[in-house]
């Protein structure tokens, strides 16, 4: 039964990460991404996936996705039907699953996924055919089914032969962080022993045009927290984590890649798309994550900011981080990895957790290259150059349309 709940552990389980899979415009897999984020590479280029000739902005960060997917239990026919976002999700999931050494025989695996768009390209294709004479249903049934995010979740379950409850959170650009935070809660409370959690989103014409219509896309280059920033850049990707109890990981002799210590959320009701200027909800989310993690700002060695590069987001987040960190702010390294790969929307939070875990593991700070003088609201130093660091905890922020705010505190694996 999902409810009533089984008796909960008297002491919450520690939630550890034993598998990480990542697909970003910097490349496929942990190694190439760690190298890219560590060096502060940028992956922007002209959009090729759809027509942007009449858009105000024509740049994004696309993933070079191979036509060959890793082997899973899906048939070739079924694999061939996967939409671009689902393909990135499957690649990331395969890497995480393999690294964790999980098997289907070990029992249920709950899934918690974050996405904003699911299989949006198929939805667009469905619409275009529906309004184009002559009327035809050819291919429409497949499009409408595979457009839906639950189809992508079931494909993932079948790909690895697992079963367990599926939760798909669509909290806009906080979805990926919400998914990992929620998944960690399931493990911590004993409701699930293993959870496959992450986020995914592919670039799509509708969403690109949407951000362009809002004039939220940078016509120059994405420069988070720069005083002269002028917008965000979109990207695409996926990240998946294998979460389990510390006891489960130790029993298996699994390598522990990191730990999810705390998760905080808050809802900003200021405006549908604009944050409250002082970042009140962001501050609440960060504080809540730290309370659950039982850490203070002084314990945090790096903040991966939401940092989209829009004027409104970055000033609000800068205020929030500065207020939250207090005296620690002036020495607290902060960067936005969106400077290199753009905003991955529903995947962003999950990818940024993966980046933090890689940075904690490798003891380096992800720089954000490019950009001029920081906004005066930044009461903290931005990480501008690749450098090593000794730190044990990181905090990552994700904020979305609708006022969805989520923060996560992560600890280095032991």
């Amino acid at each position, binding site marked *: 039964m*999902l*409810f009533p709940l089984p008796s909960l552990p008297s002491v919450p389980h520690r939630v550890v990460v034993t598998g990480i899979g990542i697909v970003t415009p910097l490349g496929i897999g942990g190694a190439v991404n760690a190298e890219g984020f560590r060096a502060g590479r940028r992956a922007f280029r002209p959009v090729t996936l759809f027509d942007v000739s009449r*858009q105000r902005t024509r740049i994004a960060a696309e993933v070079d996705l191979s036509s060959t997917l890793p082997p899973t239990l899906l048939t070739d026919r079924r694999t061939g039907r996967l939409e671009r976002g689902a393909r990135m999700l499957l690649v990331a999931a395969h890497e995480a699953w393999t690294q964790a050494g999980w098997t289907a025989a070990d029992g249920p695996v709950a899934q918690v996924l974050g996405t*904003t768009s699911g299989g949006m390209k198929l939805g667009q294709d469905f619409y275009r055919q529906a309004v184009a004479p002559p009327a035809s249903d050819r291919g429409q049934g497949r499009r409408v089914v595979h457009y839906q995010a639950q189809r992508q979740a079931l494909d993932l379950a079948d790909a690895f032969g697992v079963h367990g409850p599926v939760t*798909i959170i669509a909290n806009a650009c906080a979805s990926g962080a919400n998914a990992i935070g929620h998944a960690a809660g399931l493990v911590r409370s004993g409701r699930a022993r293993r959870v496959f959690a992450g986020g995914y989103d592919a670039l799509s014409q509708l969403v690109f045009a*949407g951000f362009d219509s809002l004039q939220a896309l940078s016509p120059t280059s994405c420069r988070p927290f720069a005083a002269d920033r002028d917008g965000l850049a979109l990207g695409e990707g996926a990240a998946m984590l294998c979460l389990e109890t510390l006891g489960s990981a130790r029993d298996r002799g699994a390598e522990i890649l990191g730990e999810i210590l705390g998760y905080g959320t808050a809802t900003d009701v200021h405006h549908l798309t604009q944050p409250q200027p002082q970042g009140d909800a962001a501050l609440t989310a960060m504080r809540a994550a730290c309370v659950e993690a039982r850490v203070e700002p002084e314990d945090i060695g790096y903040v991966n900011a939401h940092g989209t590069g829009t004027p409104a987001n970055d000033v609000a987040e800068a205020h929030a981080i500065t207020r939250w960190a207090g005296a620690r702010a002036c020495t607290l390294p902060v960067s936005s990895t969106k400077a290199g790969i753009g905003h991955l929307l529903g995947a962003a939070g999950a990818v940024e957790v993966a980046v933090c875990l890689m940075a904690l593991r490798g003891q380096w700070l992800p720089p954000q290259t490019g950009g001029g003088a920081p906004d005066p609201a930044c009461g903290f130093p931005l990480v501008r150059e690749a450098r090593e660091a000794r730190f044990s905890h990181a905090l990552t922020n994700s904020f979305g349309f609708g006022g969805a705010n989520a923060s996560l505190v992560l600890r280095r694996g032991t």
Partner: protein
Amino acid sequence: MSRIFIHGTGAVSPAGWGVAAMRDALAAGVPVPTVALERPCRAVPLSVRRVPAPEARPAFMAHPRLRRTSPITHFAVAAAIEALGEDAARVAARAMRLGIVFCAFGGCVGYSRRFYSEVLHEPATASPLVFPETVFNAPASHLAAYFGTTAVNYTVIGDQGEMVKALALAADWLLADRVDCCLVVGSEEADWLTGDALRLFGGGALLAEGAGAVCLRREPSAVELAAVTEPELFLAGRGRGPAARRMGEALGGVGDPGDLLVDGLAGGKADTAEAAAWEGWNGQRVSPRRILGEGLAASSAWQVVAAADAIRRGAARRAVVSVVGSNEQAIGAELRAG
């Protein structure tokens, strides 16, 4: 205390605005009339069940956040206001932490279709006012703004079973003391695009629109949430039939004569698995989809509301909600007199 209770219900359906209108329609047992919905490139319109226009402009529409919203939000807000009742004032006064779980299958289709149409026509002039309303969590954001709550707020997507699963999520938040009360809302709007899609995978069901909402709290009330089953996924080799059967078994199978089954049968060929799962049912039975139509997340919300309403009014001591979704899961819930 690990018990969870339903304190309020709300509904907007093709039968009208409010739980009473829905209750009357279900009691009458006569399907709500359909209306024609034109669609491009097709001579034959779709038949859908729409929410009738309200007798007067709802007062909530004066809220600044709701001016540009689409029907999915209007329905959700109306149902949520009814479900939350007098607790709304406590939430506004910050004396009660209100969580929100918003469930969607189709989501904000009307504005999404309109915006994409504008993009295809001329992206340079596509409306920046419309795009934000296309996002799945826009209705949940408007609910939070309307009630003035900054507590945890999720939009969850999936098939019709999501609404039932969301009851367990809300219970989780309540028992973890993250919130003092939690609204679980399912809402959908009818659009030709959704109707055309449902025609291809809905097994003959007719599209409907509306919303249902329940307000959950830890304090006792007349209706207790007794159980939510594990979702039985439609995985490879584990299709709808076995999933529906396992869900039925988890809820006790045949029931007693005084029990009420609020099933998800819609009158189409997609009903087979669920009908078989409950063929031995001994108690009362009502099928909201047969009367109100296939409202996707709203339909399963109506089922939950109908079950809670029956218990609250003394028509049953125990009610079972059964949902065998379109393409994800079979899941059920049990409600009891508190």
